[in-house]
């Protein structure tokens, strides 16, 4: 199979891979989590059935809500479909649209999506949705410096802030992997991802304890296809963040180095495999720790901040 795919097709493949595989990764995590707790748990494909069901249902909007409430799910979904164009999902070489934005650009687009969802939650007038939106923005402001310091580490190591460049650097030698700055930045990013995807030390991902909810409380008032888009979008955000951690920081191997169809297929399989492995790790963490009280989340964020700052310090002043 030495058929060479056209470059735009590969770029499209990146988006489609993320969009199609995302609910499956969520399903796998909840399945593994249930098995670890001794339950049978839902099927791995359950999120797809949920989405199909929601798309067939009627959509209702609360009285008094404006067009923002209905536009937000589409805006958020558009953002989540844009980010996979910018990051190395399948290839080691930069695709034409990959240089539209750097790591910060991708971060901005993800924040825009989260902002739109928060505005829609405020627009709904439901107290729980508003609570979730306000909490998500508050803690987002605390985790943002961590992301910035991770980007600084990347910039100091590579001289650019393109995700492709860091992945190439990590692949270049083993010395790049065991240097403390790289490990610290990767660990800090992982902690941020746990926060952003609403996993255990911060938030219970499933369940109905409204008082502890942050991210999960925001789409409370959405229903039908709109709710489906938000659910799908949050699964995609999770897989996008996993992809950034895996293909840029931790394991940038298995990516296609040419446009051949076979290597792109291998890259798709490798990405799903790596994301599944990371999902299992996240499920184990979910089962090993208790949820932090809301006021203790700042301690979690302070821990992540510590790792990120130490990464920059060792790099900038110690040569690590």
């Amino acid at each position, binding site marked *: 199979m030495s058929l060479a795919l056209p470059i735009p097709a590969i770029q499209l493949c990146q988006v489609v891979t993320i969009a199609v595989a995302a609910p499956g990764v969520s399903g796998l995590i909840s399945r593994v989590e249930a098995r670890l707790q001794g339950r049978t748990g839902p099927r791995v494909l359950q999120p797809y059935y949920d989405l199909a069901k929601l798309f067939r249902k009627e959509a209702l909007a609360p009285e008094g809500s404006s067009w923002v409430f209905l536009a937000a799910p589409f805006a958020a979904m558009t953002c989540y479909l844009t980010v996979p164009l910018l990051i190395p999902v399948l290839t080691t*070489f*930069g695709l*034409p649209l990959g240089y539209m934005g750097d790591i910060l650009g991708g971060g901005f687009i993800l924040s825009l999506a989260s902002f739109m969802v928060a505005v829609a939650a405020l627009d709904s007038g439901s107290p729980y949705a508003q609570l979730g939106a306000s909490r998500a923005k508050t803690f987002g402001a605390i985790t943002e410096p961590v992301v910035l310091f991770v980007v600084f580490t990347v910039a*100091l*190591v*590579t*001289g*650019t802030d*393109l995700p*492709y*460049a860091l992945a*190439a*650097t990590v692949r*270049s*030698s*083993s*010395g*790049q*992997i*065991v*240097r*403390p700055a790289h*490990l*610290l930045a990767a660990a800090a990013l992982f902690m941020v991802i746990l926060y952003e995807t609403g996993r255990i030390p911060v938030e219970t991902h499933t369940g109905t304890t409204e008082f502890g909810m942050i991210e999960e409380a925001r789409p409370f008032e959405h229903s039908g296809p709109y709710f489906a888009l938000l659910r799908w979008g949050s699964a995609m955000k999770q897989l996008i963040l996993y992809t950034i951690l895996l293909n840029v920081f931790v394991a940038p191997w298995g990516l296609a180095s040419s446009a051949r169809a076979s290597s792109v297929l291998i890259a798709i399989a490798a990405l799903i495999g790596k994301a599944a492995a990371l999902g299992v790790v996240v499920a184990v963490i979910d089962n090993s720790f208790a949820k932090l009280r809301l006021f203790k989340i*700042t*301690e979690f*964020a*302070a*821990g992540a*901040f*510590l*790792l990120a*700052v*130490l990464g920059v*310090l*060792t*790099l900038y*002043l*110690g*040569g*690590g």
Partner: protein
Amino acid sequence: MSGITAATVAAPSALSGGASVIAVGVLLAEFGMFRQALLRDQVRLYGAQSALISVLAVVVAATRHLPDLYALAALSFALKAVVVPVVLHRLLRGIGVTSSDPRWSDIAGSGALSPASSVLVAIAVAAFGFFTVSALGIRSPVLPATALSVSMAVVLVAFVLMIVRRDVVSQAIGFLALENGISLSALVVAAGLPLILEIAFLFDLLVAVMVFGLLIRVHHGRTESMSTADLTRLRG
């Protein structure tokens, strides 16, 4: 399409990178002591920190062919990672701090700052340590410069731990961790120090443990608590 360059900052060799990682692990253990609310967990972290330093000593011994350091690593592991934590655990158990009585509970005295703020203060102090050492420009033949910066940060953060925490045991642990930072810097700048001197330092540590053990016992005997919050008056 192929405008991607590899690293612009030269990567350290895998060996010196690994050594730096162990050194950073020592600093992270130090920060872990801030986070731990239970005294026995602090003691465990101290043991882990000491073990990391022994590992680093073994790495230096193996790569720089300094056989003396093997003996030192073994001795410091035996003392600081085994004997001292065991002694402290027995001390804690002896005065009943592991009982369920809340007055004598195992929970460290509340700090003067909240954990998140104290970590931020400690980050600032550690950054000061990093800047200071880099300004000195000391180069070591045996370990990367990161390790020296880290050792300075460990010493300073240990001071913050002793200042911020308001119980005797945390302060003792802070002092012992400070000694760990000093052994780390000794490993960086003076790995070839005569063994007899190093051993003398280690036995100094035992004296410190005895003094702190006595202090903890006397303080607990007088005030029935571990807290130093009520030690506010000078007595002539």
